């Protein structure tokens, strides 16, 4: 088992997340894509931790923080989406371009 | 005097107007008389202080900075609050404080819309601080600050009180109010130049670190510069950067285009101050900063400056001939006159630099007066179109006579102040600096001839303007109009200028008494002993 095999999965998930972020119109879907990306980071951290084996399991600690923050972000994001939906009856992100130029 | 020896005198001259402006703000807006009286009082006190300076100045040591004030200011970058006056800055400082007094007197009951004397006079006093400070600053950062400070009040003067007529600007699709276009153009041009000037200053500061602690101090930099510290591409670029800043301010061709617009659009007093003092900041900076700090580069750049100056002279005069607006004509004349100033500087000789200084003083007096007159006339005629004017001499004999007097002074009539600047810069151009002669003697002498032709053109447009405006029968449209000839405020403002024009015309030592020692020593330290003499000559006059 080598570390790269996990990292490649992470890279792939990250790239897929980016793809989703760029093509998804529904805001909830965008949020899902972001979760993919954050998850990819977690894979990285855990994989590195497996190699490094630091005395304080720093990688895992880090990933716990990332998971926590990601959860908070989801909460914030959904709240924003709800607020917007209430006003616009739409959750499509490209419907919002009141402000430009 | 103790006040001056301690250095506080100069500080007072610089900041008194600013304090005056702040106090102005505290006076109720409606109490215009109090505002005017207070402003005039401040200006007069400042002028009186500068006269005290004149009295206390040690003319035997005009080449040294006197009454210095040198306090730490921004220690982090080694910038000091360093003021000082020498023979070169003294006349310009006095000119500045003097014209300010006259300008305030003049504006006593000449208000452009939207009136508001409190605002206007406060701006003028702030302007005074900037101008006086520029002439006295001996630290590059301080210099930069004052150099920039003058922009703000002038911007507001032009923008708020300026010419409200609309004009088609080449390159713009719609008509723009002159004041709006002019104010921003004025600011942008100067800012553009001074941004690069600042880069130049900083480069000097940086380089001075090779020879000791980094410094912004002008005397220290001069010492370094004259000992050859700055050279090569570095110096070339630094000079170029500073050149941009100063040349825009002067203004030299082809950076002059802000000037006609700004002058034309500015309210009368604004034009006067712009012409009389603000334009001098640039040329003064050449003498104070560029030449002594970067003497070798000054030599390299001198031919280019000479060429641009001469182009400016000819070009400005020709442009004048195409004007229909009297004020714009006077504005363009400044391009030509400042061309002579810069031609003098470009020779790098004591004669040439002296020519530049007296040229500056004279231009300040004369063109200032011309703008006063143009303002007063457009105040009465509500037009500046020369084709509609005419017969002014008949309608307003006193004003017409003063206009004629000033026009002749402006075209460089010998015996009036304007002559010396022109004549001496030609004199300087005949024999430029020794080291420039090998390669560029022909160039400078051609410049001399072209400059002399420029004086002819100058006479041409000035006479033409006089004929258009002053002579002939008044136009039909003025029949039945009552015209008030020059009133007492106007005369109070103008007569001192006229007297000075004559006095300097017949006794230029008024200026040279202060400057010559300083200039000679400047040239000697920058370019070595005896640089300003012609080829050896057998002294036929014997002992």
């Amino acid at each position, binding site marked *: 088992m080598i570390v790269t095999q996990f990292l490649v999965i992470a890279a792939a998930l990250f790239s897929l997340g980016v793809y989703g972020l*760029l*093509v998804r119109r529904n805001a909830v879907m965008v949020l899902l894509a972001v979760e993919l990306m954050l998850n990819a980071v977690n894979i990285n951290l855990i994989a590195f931790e497996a190699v490094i084996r630091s005395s304080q399991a720093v990688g895992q600690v880090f990933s716990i923080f990332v998971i926590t923050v990601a959860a908070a972000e989801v909460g914030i994001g959904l709240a924003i989406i709800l607020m917007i939906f209430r006003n616009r009856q739409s959750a499509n*992100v*490209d419907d919002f371009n009141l402000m*430009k130029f | 005097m103790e006040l001056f020896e301690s250095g506080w005198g100069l500080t007072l001259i610089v900041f008194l107007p600013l304090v005056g402006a702040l106090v102005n703000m505290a006076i109720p807006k409606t109490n215009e008389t109090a505002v005017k009286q207070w402003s005039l009082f401040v200006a007069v006190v400042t002028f009186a202080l500068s006269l005290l300076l004149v009295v206390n100045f040690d003319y035997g040591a005009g080449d040294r900075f006197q009454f210095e004030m040198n306090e730490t200011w921004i220690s982090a970058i080694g910038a000091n609050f360093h003021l000082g006056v020498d023979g070169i800055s003294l006349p310009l400082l006095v000119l500045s404080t003097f014209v300010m007094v006259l300008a305030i007197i003049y504006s006593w009951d000449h208000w452009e819309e939207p009136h508001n004397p409190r605002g206007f006079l406060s701006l003028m006093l702030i302007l005074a601080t900037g101008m006086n400070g520029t002439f006295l600053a001996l630290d590059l950062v301080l210099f930069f600050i004052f150099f920039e400070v003058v922009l703000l009040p002038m911007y507001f003067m032009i923008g708020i009180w300026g010419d409200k007529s609309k004009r088609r*600007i*080449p*390159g*713009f699709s719609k008509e723009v109010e002159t004041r709006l276009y002019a104010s921003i*153009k004025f600011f*942008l*041009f100067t800012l553009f130049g001074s941004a690069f000037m600042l880069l130049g200053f900083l480069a000097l500061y940086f380089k001075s670190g090779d020879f000791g602690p980094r410094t912004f101090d002008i005397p220290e930099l001069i010492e370094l510069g004259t000992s050859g510290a700055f050279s090569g591409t570095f110096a070339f670029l630094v000079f170029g950067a500073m050149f941009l800043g100063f040349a825009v301010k002067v203004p030299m061709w082809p950076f002059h*285009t802000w000037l006609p617009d700004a002058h034309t659009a500015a309210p009368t007093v604004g034009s006067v101050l712009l012409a009389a003092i603000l334009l001098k900041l640039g040329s003064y900076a050449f003498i104070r900063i560029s030449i002594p700090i970067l003497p070798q580069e000054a030599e390299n750049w001198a031919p280019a400056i000479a060429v641009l100056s001469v182009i400016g002279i000819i*070009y400005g005069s*020709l*442009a004048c*001939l*195409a004007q229909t607006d009297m004020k714009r004509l006077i504005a363009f004349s400044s391009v030509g006159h400042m061309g002579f100033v810069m031609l003098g500087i470009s020779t790098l*000789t*004591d004669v040439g630099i002296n020519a530049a200084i007296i040229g500056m003083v004279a231009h300040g007096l004369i063109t200032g007066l011309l703008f006063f007159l143009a303002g007063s006339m457009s105040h009465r005629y509500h037009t500046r179109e020369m084709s509609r004017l005419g*017969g002014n*001499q*008949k309608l307003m004999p006193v004003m017409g006579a003063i206009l004629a007097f000033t026009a*002749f002074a402006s*075209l460089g*009539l*010998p015996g009036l102040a304007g002559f010396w600047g022109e*004549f*001496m810069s*030609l*004199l300087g151009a*005949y024999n430029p600096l020794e080291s420039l002669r090998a390669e560029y003697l022909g160039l400078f002498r051609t410049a*001399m001839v072209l400059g*002399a*032709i420029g*004086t*002819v053109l100058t006479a*041409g447009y000035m006479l*033409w303007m006089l*004929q258009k405006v*002053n*002579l*002939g*029968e008044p136009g039909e449209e003025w029949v039945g109009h009552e015209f008030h000839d020059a009133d007492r405020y106007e005369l109070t403002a103008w007569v001192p200028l006229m007297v000075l024009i004559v006095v300097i015309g*017949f006794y*230029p*030592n008024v200026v*040279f008494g202060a400057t*010559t020692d300083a200039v*000679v020593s400047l*040239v000697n330290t920058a370019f070595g002993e*005896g640089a300003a*003499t*012609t080829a*050896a*000559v*057998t*002294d*036929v*006059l014997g002992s």
Partner: protein
Amino acid sequence: MTHLVLAVEAGAPELVSGGFFAQWAGIMLVAPFVAFLLIVFLGKRLKYLGAEFAIGAMALNLVWASILFVQNMSHGIFREENFEIASIGMFDGRALVFELGWVVDGLSIMMYFVVAFVGLLVFIYAVGYMHGDVRVTWFFASLSLFAGSMLILVGSPNLIQLIIGWEGVGLASYLLIGHYWEQKENSSAAMKAFYTNKVADVGLILGAILLGLAIGDFSFAAINEAAANHAEPLEAVAFAGGLLLFFGAMGKSAQFPLHIWLPDAMAGPTPVSALMHAATMVTAGIYLMARTFPVYQDLVGGEAARQWMVPIGVITLFAMGLLALVADDIKKVLAYSTVSQLGYMMTAVAAGGYTAGLFHLFTHAFFKALLFLGAGSVIHAVHSNNMSDMGGLRKEMPRTFWTFVIGSLSLAGIIPLAGFFSKDEILATLDHEGYQAFMWVAIAGAFVTAFYMTRAVALTFFGSYKGHGHPHESPALMTVPLVALAVPSVIAGFLNIPGVEFGGFGNFTTWVGARVVAMGDHHPEAIDWTLAAYGLTAGGLGILIGWLLYGKDAETQLARDRFEIPVLYPLLRQKYYMDHLALGMVGFTKGPAARAVDWVNTYVLDGIVNGVGGGVRLMGRFVYGGLDQRGIDMFFNGVSAGADSAGLALRRLQTGRVQQYAMGFVVGALVLVLAIAVFN
């Protein structure tokens, strides 16, 4: 500061310092300016509107100048007072200074006298002439300004002060020519005069720079001594400097082709023409040449320059004289005559005749002023400048007539009037210096001179009156100066009969020769009667033919009788022959030749001037409209417009769609990564 000057050449006169009057000669220079200020501020309240001050100052000057003149007769005076006005830098280890002051020597004393004498008379005359006219106060103020500037000019010890005076008289000339500035022609004429002079002044200024900077001193004494010593640096610039100075002189002294302003300058009131455009101001160029004479005389380069100057003078004297033949305006006749006479003076000085040129200047001042004042008197009477509106005035205006005739004869060079001696001396100089061909032209010029003067006299004073109203003699205020001027017009010639000295008082030659440097010009021992005969013959012939043509008008029987009797009567018996000859000659001179010259003058010279003027205006319009507004300004505006549209374009990137932002974000990140990868 006073220049300590040593006589450097054997034969230079011994000079004395001249005492009180020489020491304080500066008062003469200042007095008119004081008068000017007094007139401007107080003049309007006085009876004569300020003329009092002007006349007073000139009277003082005349007294002062006369005393100096007399002092100078017995013993040559040289005195210089200098006051430094500007120390402008270093030259060869010493200060390079500008000074003001006055010089009192033979040359300047002569000029002081002429200016004061003619000036005083013209001022007095003007009181009468200008009575009831517009802006009289201002007129006298300007006249005083002129007198002061002229004295500053002639009293100048150095080139700088000379330039001040030089342009000062130009200014006064501008003011006075344009006295009636309500009409555009007048203000244009004033502009033309000032402007032409300004062009010439370029030469003066550059010449002054060249000469002054060659030795580091602008004073005439220093320059002249350096020239007398053949100083090397001065020699190097002598040719260019000499010609440049001469160019300046050409403007002020109306030498071909810069004479064009002078005829137009007649737009001013007649006293102005008399004083400035005949007697004094226009001679400033001659004066300058005389002042710097050693530069032209002693230096090789100066000599070379003279070879260019003589032909100019000769062309001026002849061609301009011809023009006087076709003018109807009496003042124009006199103006062309003045130009022609100035040509004589310039020719003389350029040929090396220092004294000859100055002497003609001296005498010419009197009789030409006389003629102008006489003409003014006539104009005053008939309210027209045109001779076609005059005629037969000799009866109504006897004093004017007689003095005018005296002046004309003097101008025509008829013995023993002043003009004869001075013109003769010029011929002698040309002969002696080897300019024989030019001498013959000068003699021909004398013929022309006599011819047009006769014509003027005949048309004005003889025949029948063709104008309107009833002309009458002018008031005494005007005629007394005429008489006073007639006297020297008659007798001034005797002051310089070659070889004749007035006891210990010398003669004109010695008086104007009282200079620190000997002028080294040739002084004939006695009158060369052969030359005198040529001159006289030419003059006489001119008068005769002129008379034959114009004098025998139908109603001028008496006049014809009087002139037919003594000498000309026998010739008139072959009057057809003479008529034909005369007609042929005149026909040619007055016809094609004169017309050709006139045409050249109008269309070529004036055309060039107008063309240059128009061209400059056009250029101005191009520079402003084309280069400045559409070029440079457009450029800067274009730059800002470019920034503006770049801004507009950049705004478009901000589409408002968040996913495009994200796209930009990712692209930016990738580009940054790749850029840094490539960079490293």
